[in-house]
Every structure is written in structure tokens, then in C-alpha cells.
């Protein structure tokens, strides 16, 4: 590395003792810095958490920090939000949580499967145009979602034609299966980044491994399933977290293709609706907000051990 030699030209050698002191000091500064930042960063979420347990009367008349002066907590808000609705909202939030899961889990799994297979092919099988395909898929990331939504909607309903010749059939999903449209849209919009990141990871697997398997007569699908998949688990897990969060948190795609109804609306869109209806009832809104966070939290902590490790491994070569 040329950078290392450059550094050696500038002598900053200090006597050992002073250096030790300086290092201890700077690690303490770092600790303090990170503690302050973490507290700052957590305050807003913490405020929501506290508010969601306060009785409505208190919330309407004082800020959430007053809870620590006059502590009064209740489960009532969660009960209302989950099972009852209240304040002009009919029905609890549970069906919408289910919708979110029904949308998010398949969308995440489908996009991961397709992307992993494509990444394997592009990274390990030399064929004409493999580089251009990789670049083409990567470049699509810059297309803003909004640009494709409307053509996409018409495409789902009418199919694609050149002149009068149909080249893709109309899917007619909108009426009865809006969730299928949401799956397809999320999968396609996730593919560019997923293929890019997984490609980087798969490309740095040892060549000998693949070649040995080839010599033993394994076909490509078998190599992919038994050798590549287990090795890329960390990368898959980290991308799964990201994809899960994207889909779970999405509002635009869900609204465009699912609209507002109890059969296909995810919890984000429901919350957005509730902002209007609950109005000043912040204790209910915040309880709803916390309910919506819990599932992503579980997913994150379940997959966390893979997270930092898998995300970009292969992108950096030291």
C-alpha cells in the first residue's frame, strides 16, 4: 500500500509514557462521546415509550418527562390499540400487523432467493455479457421508485403490448390479490442492491472449493445449494435484516398497490391513517407506534450476530 509509506515520512514519534497517557485519555474521550451521543439519539424513542404508558388525561396536560415527577402508568392504551380501536377507529391493530407479516416475510425470502442465485451465476460462471448484466442490474438502483409506480400499476392491470401484440399477460391481481402485487414490486426493487452486495460476497469465496465440487461431478444447482448457501449465511442474514426493515417500513408501495382496507393494508399505512383519527390522543398513537416496532426489533436481535460481519464482507480488500 502506498499510503503506509507516505505516513512513515512524517515522524510523530513520542516518548512511550506520554503516548500511553494520550491513548488512555483518548479512549476515555471516545467513551464519553459515544455515551452522550447514544443518550441524545435515544431520547426521542424513549419519549414515545414513556408516553405510551401514560393515562390519556396526563398526556393531554403535560409533557412526557413529567412522568418522572408524577409516575402513573397503565396498560389501557395497549389494550385499546391492540383489540378495541377507540376514538373513531374501528377494530384493533392486530389484523394490520398480520398483513405486514404476510407482506414482509415472503417479499424478503423471494428477493433473497432470486438475488442469491443470480449473484452466484454472475460471480462464478463465465459467460458472455456477465459483466454487462451485473452493471445493468446495479445501475437500476438509481431509478426513483416513484418513476415506475404508475407504469407498473397499468402493467399489472393491462399487461404489456407492442402495438397490439401482447408480450406479457395482464395479471389482474389488483382486485383479489393486491398483496401479490406488493410482493412482486418489493422483490424487484430490492434486487439491484441485493445482487450487488451478495455478488461481492460470493465472488471472494475460494475458487478451489467450487472446482473440487465440479470435479466430483456436482452440478451448479447442487454447488449453489450445498456449498455456496451455507457459506454466505452471514451476508444473507444481514441483507435479510435490511430488506425486512425496508418492506416492513414501506408506505408508498403499500398505498399504491394495496390501498386502505383491512385485507391488505400494512401497519405503517394504518398508523398513518390513525394519525388523522386519533388526533390529540397521543397515548394511543404512541402505543400503536411501539406495537409496530416490536416485530422488527425481534428480527434484528435474532439476526444481529451476523449483522456487521456479513454486510459488506468482500467489498473491502485490505
Amino acid at each position, binding site marked *: 500500500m502506498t499510503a503506509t509509506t507516505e505516513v512513515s515520512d512524517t515522524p510523530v514519534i513520542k516518548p512511550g509514557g506520554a503516548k500511553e497517557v494520550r491513548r488512555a485519555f483518548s479512549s476515555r474521550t471516545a467513551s464519553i462521546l459515544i455515551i452522550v451521543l447514544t443518550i441524545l439519539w435515544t431520547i426521542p424513542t424513549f419519549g414515545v415509550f414513556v408516553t405510551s404508558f401514560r393515562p390519556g388525561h396526563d398526556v393531554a396536560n403535560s409533557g412526557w418527562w413529567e412522568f418522572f415527577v408524577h409516575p402513573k402508568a397503565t396498560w389501557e392504551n395497549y389494550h385499546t390499540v391492540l383489540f378495541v380501536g377507540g376514538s373513531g377507529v374501528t377494530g384493533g391493530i392486530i389484523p394490520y400487523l398480520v398483513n405486514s407479516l404476510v407482506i414482509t416475510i415472503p417479499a424478503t425470502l423471494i428477493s433473497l432467493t432470486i438475488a442469491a442465485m443470480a449473484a452466484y451465476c454472475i460471480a462464478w460462471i463465465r459467460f458472455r455479457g456477465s459483466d454487462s448484466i451485473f452493471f445493468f442490474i446495479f445501475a437500476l438502483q*438509481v431509478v426513483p421508485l416513484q418513476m415506475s409506480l404508475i407504469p407498473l400499476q397499468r402493467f399489472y392491470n393491462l399487461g404489456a*403490448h407492442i402495438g397490439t401484440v401482447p408480450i406479457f399477460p395482464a395479471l389482474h391481481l389488483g382486485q383479489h390479490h393486491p398483496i401479490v402485487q406488493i410482493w412482486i414490486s418489493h422483490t424487484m426493487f430490492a434486487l439491484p442492491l441485493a445482487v450487488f452486495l451478495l455478488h461481492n460476497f460470493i465472488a471472494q469465496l475460494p475458487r478451489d472449493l467450487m472446482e473440487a465440487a465440479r470435479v466430483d461431478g456436482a452440478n451448479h*444447482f447442487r454447488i449453489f445449494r450445498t456449498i455456496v448457501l451455507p457459506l454466505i449465511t452471514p451476508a444473507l442474514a444481514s441483507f435479510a435484516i435490511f430488506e425486512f426493515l425496508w418492506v416492513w417500513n414501506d408506505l408508498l408501495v403499500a398505498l399504491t398497490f394495496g390501498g386502505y382496507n383491512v385485507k391488505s393494508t400494512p401497519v405503517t399505512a394504518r398508523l398513518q391513517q390513525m394519525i388523522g383519527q386519533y388526533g390529540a390522543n397521543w397515548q394511543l*398513537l404512541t402505543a400503536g*407506534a411501539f406495537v409496530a416496532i416490536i416485530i422488527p426489533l425481534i428480527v434484528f436481535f435474532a439476526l444481529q450476530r451476523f449483522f456487521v460481519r456479513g454486510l459488506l464482507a468482500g467489498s473491502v480488500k485490505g
Partner: protein
Amino acid sequence: MSVRDKVVLSLMVGIPLLGVLFFIWFPAVATVILSFTKWNGIGGIKAIKADGVQNYVQAATNYPPFWPAVRHNVLWLIVFLVIATPLGMLFAVVLDRNLRGGRIYQSLLFLPVMLSLALIGIIWELIYSPNFGLLNNVIGRSGQHNLIDWLGNPHLNLWAVLVEACWRQAPYVMVLYLAGLKAVDPTLREAALVDGAGPWQTFWRVVFPTLRPINVVILVITVIESLRAFDLVYITNGGNNGLELLSVLITRNIVGQVSRIGFGSALGVVLLVISLVPIVTFLVMQLRQEKRS
């Protein structure tokens, strides 16, 4: 390669390729074409009329929210690039020192990334609310006579919302950089240390250059996220009164009742061009640098 292998491989590459072709590429091209036409979305393809650059002219000269929206979008991008990204990098560098309890800080800092932008809008209301918001109470502006309406005042609300956006974006960048830093060969740092480099120099001269591939990913993600800004302003006030953004205007013209698809598409193209500027600039700089070295 056997026939079976060939079939399997073609499926493995073909399905995603056709997928992105049909579901992203064609719609995007269609949007560019539609931006030169006039169409209210009713009636088949025959109802579409060519209209030249009229939509663009009209947007620039006869559509009041257009220029504010462009300004806000560009500002959003700049704030993400010069504030949120370095902040995320700082988090990552500090956390990378393996402090005691680092995992806990990391998880807490990452929390905002797990929240939907809709939720973030709700969460920050509790900070910004004029009477019972934390901010006004802390700075002593919660009395009736001196209230600051952070989200209502059209001169302040964009900045207030940008704070919310950075609150989520910085930890996002943090995780990506952290992943990159963990992958840096430790012998590089040791070598720098032996050569007598301080931590500052080690980072900028030795570690940072190896992170270059990650910078590409971060740049792309930053651009994508700043274009996705839709949800946050939509939740806050529907994207009016100081919070105009191109994405909101597009949605309003295409999905809303007005249905001016050609016009909305033209706005979409403008958004695409804005997002391409930083990416193309970066790639050109990279190419030049590679040629030099």
C-alpha cells in the same frame, strides 16, 4: 456443461433479469416517454398525445411548488452528504475502538434505522410539539407568548424535518462503515502504528483509502434514501407549506385525483436527473483517480 446445467443457469440469471427489465427498466423508460406527452390516464394508449417539452416548460414556469421542491430535494441530498454521512462515520470510528459495552451503544444507535419514516414523524412530534414538546420546554419557549412552532413555520419546518431524517440516516451510514472497518486488515494499522502515525493520520491515510468500495455503496444508499424522503414530509403535513418535495408532487399528480400523468412523469425525470448528478460526479472522479495511479 450439461444441458440441465444450462437450463438451471439460464433460469437463475434469466428470472431476475427479466424481472428488473419488466418491472423497473420498462416502467422507467415509459415514464421518460410519457413525460413528453399529455395524458390524463383515462382511455387506452390512443388517448396519449405527444406534447413535446410542454410539461417541462410548464413545470418550470407555471407550477409554483416546482422550484421550492427542487431546492428542498437538493438541500436534502446535500445535508445527507455533508452532515449525516460524516456523523455516521464518526459513530463507526468511535465504536470500532471496541469500547466496553460497544454492542449496547451500537444497538441503541441503530434503533432509528428500524423505524418507519411514518413512525419517525410521530416520534418527533413529541419533541417538536409547541406546548408539550421537549425542545421548547428545554429552551424555555413553551409559554403562549413565545412559542416556536417548529413543524408549522414554513421557514423552520424543513430544517426540523431534516434533523429527523439525519437522526435515522447517520446510524444507517454507521452500520455500513462499521462493517467496512471491521474488514480492514489489522496488520495495516499495526504497520502504521509502528511507523509512528497518530490515530488521525492512520485513519485518513491508511484505513480510509481501503474503504473506497464502501463509499460507493454509501453514496448510492444516501441518494436513494434522500429521494425516498416522501414518507416523512407526507406524514408531517402532506408535503405543503415549506415541505414541498418532488416525490410529493409526483405522487400528487399521478396517484391523486388530478391524474396528469405526463406532467407527473416529467417531474419524475427531473428527480432522476438530480439523483444522477452526485453519482455520475463520483464515478467520474473515481475513474480519473484510477487513471492517475
